[in-house]
């Protein structure tokens, strides 16, 4: 329900103008969730944008402190719910660093492959949703069709479409099912051609371009000061990608380009993501090709369940470890670690303070969408009309699960 409040009437040169307070959301299709924007407007001209967030606040960080380290994985899924494998990965890296263990190479490949697949699924949504927000309805139907293929792959690998929770501390839950590689490669072949389809649909679409080109420009320096990261920052010409500059897991073994644009407007932010999907696709192919055979979980009965489930029936010791792990979890030595990964939305950071018990003392999530959304309030971007706010919001690509935590 949209309410309009008239603040006061101001005399201007051209006649009477009315200052209006407009509520956009929280139930509005273009707010991508439950975001409420309070707009102060002079007629159709935007004077102030004030996001009101927290409608989806679930106290995730408070819950972290009462969950064991393994139980936290499903909670991280629900941060950026479009790309759970990335969220799992960042968290697992923080815990593994304090435990001083490293996942086996095959597990690292599986994690990275899933993270890149989920990046494709996350970017697919905005590739279609931004045009839909500004009036080009068709693309979303195509991108959702293709996103379904990624969902099917996720379901095949983990058994779940969305909240995969596939990572574990020290590896992944299960090995890839039989025939998975072939199906993933098949998806790569089909999808490579589809990306060009979206571009043909939109790059010369005058309605789309008129709404996004030269709207919401952010300069590189402003973007850094605002704390933008990921594609939003690279669209403004800042060449920074954590996967390349501080490679984690096996990213140093993959070839990829960091996509940057120059103008930093809504179009560039959209285009940056479309091009990133190509790179991700290329990385998924490399992962499938390079993936070695081997273990998928660390061989430490105090941290991970035994891979060979048959042992549970024969070995008393394995059985005891399994019980202890399931009932109480494992202890993480006291210390602190900040793990930063390149999530689809930007820098996803987990700051873990452990006190030696089975639960974290403090686990802070640096959620990229939360920081990115702040750019809406900034007056240095050239948002002029009400319609530009929608384009700007869509191009920043916030996921409310992550904004509200």
């Amino acid at each position, binding site marked *: 329900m949209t309410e309009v409040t008239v603040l006061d009437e101001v005399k201007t040169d051209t006649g009477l103008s009315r200052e209006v307070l407009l509520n956009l959301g929280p139930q509005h299709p273009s707010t991508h969730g439950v975001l409420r924007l309070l707009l102060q407007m002079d007629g159709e001209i935007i004077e102030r944008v004030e996001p009101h967030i927290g409608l989806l606040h679930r106290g995730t960080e408070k819950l972290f402190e009462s969950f064991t380290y393994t139980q936290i994985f499903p909670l991280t899924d629900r941060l950026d719910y479009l790309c759970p494998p990335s969220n799992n990965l960042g968290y697992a890296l923080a815990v593994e660093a304090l435990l001083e263990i490293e996942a086996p190479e095959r597990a690292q490949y599986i994690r990275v492959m899933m993270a890149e697949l989920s990046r494709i699924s996350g970017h697919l949504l905005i590739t279609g949703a931004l045009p839909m927000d500004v009036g080009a309805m068709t693309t979303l139907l195509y991108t959702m069709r293709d996103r379904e293929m990624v969902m099917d792959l996720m379901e095949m690998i983990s058994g779940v479409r969305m909240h995969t929770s596939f990572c574990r501390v020290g590896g992944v839950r299960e090995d890839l099912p039989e025939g998975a590689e072939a199906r993933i490669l098949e998806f790569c072949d089909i999808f490579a051609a589809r990306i060009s389809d979206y571009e043909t649909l939109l790059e010369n679409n005058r309605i789309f371009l008129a709404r996004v080109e030269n709207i919401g420009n952010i300069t590189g320096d402003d973007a850094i000061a605002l704390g933008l990261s990921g594609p939003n920052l690279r669209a403004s010409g800042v060449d920074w990608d954590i996967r390349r500059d501080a490679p984690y897991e096996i990213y140093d073994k993959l070839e990829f380009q960091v996509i940057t644009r120059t103008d930093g407007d809504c179009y560039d932010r959209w285009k940056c993501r479309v091009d990133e999907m190509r790179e991700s696709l290329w990385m998924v192919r490399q992962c499938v090709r390079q993936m070695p055979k081997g273990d998928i979980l660390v061989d430490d009965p105090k941290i991970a369940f035994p891979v060979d489930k048959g042992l549970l029936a024969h070995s008393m010791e394995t059985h005891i470890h399994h019980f202890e792990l399931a009932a109480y979890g494992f202890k993480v030595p006291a210390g602190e670690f900040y793990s930063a990964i390149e999530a689809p939305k930007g820098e996803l950071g987990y700051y873990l303070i452990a006190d030696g018990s089975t639960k974290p003392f403090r686990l802070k999530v*640096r959620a990229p969408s939360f920081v990115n959304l*702040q750019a809406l309030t900034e007056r240095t971007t050239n948002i002029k009309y009400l319609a530009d706010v929608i384009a700007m919001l869509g191009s920043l690509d916030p996921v409310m699960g992550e904004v*509200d935590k």
Partner: protein
Amino acid sequence: MRVVDIPLEQVLEHFAGRVGVDDSAADMRCLLVMPTDLVALCTLLRDEAALRFTFLSDICGVDYFPDTPRFLLVYHLYSIPHKMRLRIKCQLEDPPVAPTLTPVWTTANWHEREAYDMYGIRFDGHPDLRRIYMWEGFDGYPMRRDFPLRGYKDDYNPMGAERPVEGSGS
């Protein structure tokens, strides 16, 4: 992740002993600073040519209740040109007050609102210090350790106040 060596000598010299170094963490170097020196230190870290910490990643509040000093603010910085990270820690007494960093990094605005909302840390000079997740009029600071995990006032929570579990000893 390995610890990248950061040329911090000049900064430490500039503050003549008022800024400490904590090298216990395995991931990055860490500076300890008093609230009074926080803004000056951050401005220096941002502008110094050899450092250029232009990117503020995160501000994290921590509550050490019942220990004192009770609160801790942790800042994570990143230098995009030099590819290095740095952590700053600032201890606060109860009631916690810290200077705002919004003039140094615009992005500090919402991070500080979050720390205020969750821990009740006041930021002097903040342009718009309001709750960000909880609603106006919410009583208490949810992330504090003495705030119950379950059972915030009966009006809001039908489960009622949290009772100690029998036999758990707590």
